[in-house]
């Protein structure tokens, strides 16, 4: 009998407000890809941090390669051969990619050597990154690449990945899976945390399901169906979305060859971006993060008003020079990707956070009607089923999903004519995600124009009528969802929507075969 690579027994971890893990046991064999499945808040991240030594359990034992170990900190974990790619990045903003990686390694290597090995690993796994760039200029997706490379450089025996694919193209996910399968075949065990069922079923041969901090099932995901896994994970299946056919109405948003130079030096220039969003349709923009989504959204929301006035038109009015509040008066509402700090002020109450985009409770002279404000917040909390301590609960006291429901609710409640949503369900649990998507569709059915920017293809295919792809600051033509396929969109994500390029590639493929 082989000695398990990792064995957790009866792990319990209590926090002041919540029991994150309760009597959790888990066994990972050498060379096994083991999935940990659960919703956000089920205790997956805490459990991984315990294995990685950054959190100490209140109870329970950890065995590594058959020996009981007490992992006091991540350095000890790395010394044992445990490496982790966190969901929330632990990178220093002011340092470069290479310096960040260097900090996490033992100090025998010089910075130059590390830079070199980053480049090597990066090209080996197709994780394109410039080691000299400061981390604060990277997009979310790029930061995750840094984390993945950093872990691979330690040649781990056990690699923990916390939701690693959320920012990758389908092709890149395939590539990553090839890497992970290769690592596993070389004897490295993999703990793969995800809520994406098809990924787990493709990659993993064992699965531990967590719900509310407890183990609710251990199974082989390849023998299970999505439905049965989902039932273990959330206790019930999320209701399927209804997508009614609906003829799109008048053009609400018209973007005319939007050209915009980058604002900071590591940003992306927008080149000839052109699109239309009409009333009663959901248009999606797919793409790997860091390809101009951020810049496009800043230009559309009014946070960046440098474009020529005619480049963005709302109901035929030149809007590119208008500030965010002016655009809101035209009915343009925007849900940003960052919930805390941009979509909401973390330390302020939910009611006060309404006033970022809403002026309903503000009198003519700028006087705040506190009662009306609280009533409005209460109404949104009730309508969108937000779990919160009341209208004055601080925004940061809410879980990611609930705060997202509140922010989306705040904008939908304004009866927008055009709603722009960035990453509607990033880090949001399955139930809340289904609800938010449902609300977006309801808004579309009510005749609102909706633009969704997301890195989750499943999501876009679920809610959009038409899809664009953004790559290197350029926007593809739109394609009806019915005609789009995952592989096509994936190709477009690399910028290959141009017919000539496609033909050229096809010819080359033919030549190779011939």
């Amino acid at each position, binding site marked *: 009998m082989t000695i398990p690579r990792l064995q957790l027994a009866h792990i319990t971890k209590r926090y*002041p407000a919540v029991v994150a893990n309760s009597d959790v046991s888990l066994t990972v064999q050498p060379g096994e890809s083991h999935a940990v499945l659960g919703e956000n808040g089920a205790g997956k991240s805490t459990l991984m941090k315990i294995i990685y030594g950054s959190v100490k359990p209140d109870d329970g034992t950890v065995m590594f390669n058959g020996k009981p170990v007490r992992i006091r900190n991540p350095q000890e974990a790395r010394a044992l051969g445990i490496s982790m790619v966190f969901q929330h990045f632990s990178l220093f903003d002011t340092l470069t990619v290479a310096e960040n990686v260097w900090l996490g390694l033992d100090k025998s290597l010089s910075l130059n050597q590390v830079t070199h090995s980053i480049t090597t690993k990066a090209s080996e796994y197709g994780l394109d990154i410039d080691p000299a760039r400061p981390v604060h200029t990277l997009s979310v997706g790029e930061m995750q690449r840094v984390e993945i490379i950093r872990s691979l450089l330690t040649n781990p025996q056990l690699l923990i990945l916390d939701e690693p694919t959320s920012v990758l193209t389908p092709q890149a996910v395939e590539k990553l899976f090839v890497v992970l399968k290769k690592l596993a075949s070389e004897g490295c065990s993999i703990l793969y945390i995800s809520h994406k069922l098809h990924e787990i079923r493709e990659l993993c041969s064992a699965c531990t399901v967590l719900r509310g901090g407890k183990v609710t099932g251990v199974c082989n995901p390849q023998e299970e169906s999505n439905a049965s896994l989902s039932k273990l994970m959330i206790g019930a299946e999320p209701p399927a979305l209804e997508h009614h056919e609906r003829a799109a109405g008048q053009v609400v948003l018209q973007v005319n060859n939007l050209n915009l130079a980058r604002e900071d030096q590591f940003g992306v220039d927008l080149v000839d971006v052109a699109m239309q969003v009409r009333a009663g349709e959901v248009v999606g923009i797919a793409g790997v993060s860091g390809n101009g989504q951020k810049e496009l959204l800043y230009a559309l929301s*009014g946070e960046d008003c440098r474009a020529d006035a005619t480049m963005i038109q709302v109901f035929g009015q030149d809007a590119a020079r208008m500030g965010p509040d002016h655009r809101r008066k035209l009915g343009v509402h925007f849900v940003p990707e960052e919930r805390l700090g941009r979509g*909401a002020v973390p330390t302020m109450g939910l009611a006060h956070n309404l006033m970022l*985009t809403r002026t309903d409770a*503000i009198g003519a002279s700028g*006087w*705040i009607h506190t009662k009306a404000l609280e009533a409005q917040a209460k109404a949104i909390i009730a309508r969108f089923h937000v779990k919160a301590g009341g209208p004055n609960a601080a925004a940061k006291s809410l879980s990611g999903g609930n705060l997202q429901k509140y922010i989306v609710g705040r904008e939908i409640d304004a009866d927008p004519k055009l709603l722009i949503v960035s990453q509607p369900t990033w880090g949001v649990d399955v139930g809340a995600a289904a609800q938010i998507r449902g609300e977006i569709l309801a808004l579309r059915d009510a005749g609102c124009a909706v633009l969704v920017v997301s890195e989750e293809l499943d999501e876009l295919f679920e809610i959009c009528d038409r899809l664009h792809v953004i790559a290197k600051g350029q926007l593809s033509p739109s394609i009806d969802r019915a005609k789009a396929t995952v592989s096509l969109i994936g190709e477009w994500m690399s910028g290959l929507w141009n017919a000539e390029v496609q033909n050229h590639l096809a010819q080359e493929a033919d030549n190779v075969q011939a």
Partner: protein
Amino acid sequence: MFKLEARPQPSKFWSMGSPLLALAITVVIGMVLFAALGKDPAKGLAIFFWEPIKTPYALGELMVKATPLLVIALGLAVCFRSNVWNIGAEGQFVIGAVFAGGVALLADKTTDGWIVIAILLAGIFGGMVWAGLTALLRDKFNANEILVSLMLVYVADMVLSYLVYGPWKDPAGYNFPQSKTFEAITQIPRLMQGSRVSIGLLIALLGALGLWVFLFRTRAGFAQQVGGLAPAAARYAGFSSRRALWTALLVSGGAAGLAGALEVAGPIGQLTPYVPAGYGFAAIIVAFVGRLHPVGMVFSAVLMSMFYIGGELAQSRLGLPKSLTGVFQGLLLFTLLACDTLIAYRLRFTSPLAVKGAP
């Protein structure tokens, strides 16, 4: 053994309790200090905390000193809440005093009492001009407002010195560096006979009320604070960061200038090189001890005023150096910063046994 444990929510109790605990610790350290200096701690304490409130006259003096502190702190609170770090209120105070003094010097025997209004407005304008320099440099050249405002304090002192050593020197003043004594008509009206408390106190209290309304009941005040708490959220909402910068500096400059006017046309009565008394710096402590909250700052201004008077009394009665005031101010600020840890964290005592069992 004990350890700090993060609270799920910041504690309401300790956000109020922390200044009180800080005060208590300051008092204890103060007593130890008195004892170490060979003085009776009880007597030392009495001088700091009882003498300033013993008689109506003493109370009045307490208010005289608390008024400029409160006025300046109210303005600074707007700045600090919007993440604009104006450290140069002292300079704005001085220039406010200079402008106000300039108007007061225009008065002669025939001048009407309305000149007081002009004096106060001139003070406000002077403070705004001085703070506006900082705002301009930050806005146009992105110059750090902490450095600029602080450096301008010393420029302001030089301006004052130039005037009282030069053009504005009293010809009948035996060559002392001071201006003429202002006409009596320029005196800020006093609230009652036998006390030096002026309508400045009322202005300060109205200012506190006004600040409360601005911060918590107007959209402009909300926008101002969002810019400080979450700049990205302010940009998302469409609140202008330039406007917030200018508002913050002009309001706090105006307030500091007003305090300068109240001082020169009140207790001082002429321009001298001793107009800068450190109120502009002490008000920073007042603002933070008062939690940047209008009501809290009323109390902390009184407390800080006690330290001023206590320091002077300690000098005359106990023969201790006047710098004791600064020691107490510093102690209070440090203990407050330490005690504030309790707002976000709780202390948990762990028995030595459990520590041994832990890895």
